[in-house]
């Protein structure tokens, strides 16, 4: 009785998988010799594979960076449009930010570049943006001062 076509596929797969495992076990010398026998230059063929792997890794990492940038942009856009319970006047917001940074100096280091550390150079919009970021980070919620300054 003749075999089903699926049986032939299964047998071919078993042969090819066994050959794959034999390649996994083969020595470097055997592999290089086999590539030469096939008429290829092992060094050139290997560098072509390396270059393709590098390209693949680069594309993956660029995609990941782009995704992170898009996520950041979306979050910033969301923050711009979101309503935050912040003091209503620019002066009160500046006072609040100063109070936060006084209590959490590490936040000032993280959010504000050195040239703006004396506060006078920060625009009202900058102050508001910093407070929004602190609010997003949950810093304002855990600050006793914020409770007293809340409008």
């Amino acid at each position: 009785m003749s075999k089903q076509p699926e049986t032939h596929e299964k047998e071919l797969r078993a042969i090819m998988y066994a050959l794959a495992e034999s390649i996994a076990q083969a020595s470097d010398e055997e592999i290089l010799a086999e590539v030469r026998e096939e008429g290829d230059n092992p060094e050139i063929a290997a560098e072509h594979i390396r270059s393709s792997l590098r390209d693949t890794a680069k594309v993956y990492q660029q995609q990941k960076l782009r995704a992170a940038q898009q996520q950041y942009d979306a979050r910033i856009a969301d923050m711009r449009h979101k309503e935050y319970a912040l003091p209503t006047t620019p002066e009160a917001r500046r006072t609040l930010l100063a109070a936060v940074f006084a209590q959490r100096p590490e936040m000032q280091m993280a959010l504000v570049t050195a040239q703006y550390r004396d506060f006078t150079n920060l625009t009202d919009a900058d102050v508001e943006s910093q407070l929004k970021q602190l609010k997003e980070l949950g810093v304002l919620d855990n600050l006793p001062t914020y409770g007293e300054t809340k409008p």
Partner: protein
Amino acid sequence: MEKNPSHKIPEETAATPVEINQAIDTLRPAELLRLKKYAQFRIKGLGRASQGRNDEDLLYEALNATLAGNRQWNTSVSFPVHLLGAMRSISSHWKEQFDAAEALLEAEVISTTSAGKAYNPYVNARSTNPDSERMMAAKQEVEAIEQLLADDPLALDIIGGWRAEMTGPEIQEALGLTKTAYETTVKRLRRKIQSFLSQREHGAWERHTMTTASVTPSMIPRGENRV
């Protein structure tokens, strides 16, 4: 042989993207070629289940899965061994997915006749189905391999063992071979088969088949004129 890499590993032993890039840079030529050849054989073994994917697709999928952390590289095993394991696992997964999709498709089209008998158009249409052509090509490929090794009875016996899904040690025991004799024969038959496949890829297939076997359209590499 190093132990196989695990799928999920403790965070502290998983490689970072920087380590992965460094590993690519330091792979030896033979390691790179081994990865490529391994992928070629796995894809060839998948047959229809590869669904048009090639060896590069398999290797890049293994790398991307590693970078994404879906298949973490435990740095206690070498990078090539990790990639071989990832390719083995991914290609097996592709096969399972293909089988599941095919079974679902077949179940959807099986109907019952008025006499209460199940009617499967896939079985009835086998002679004209493009997939059945490819399945028959598998038969011809196996036959071509047998023909290629016709003057090497020991190699044929080993191929027979593989076809029966026997492991290396099982074949050695059945044939009364030492490990060295088995490995030497495997090396010899692998070279013959690789050379045969390589010649076919380079367009010498038609010349070869003129003297060894009848040509079937599905055995001619894509992009070449069919007989």
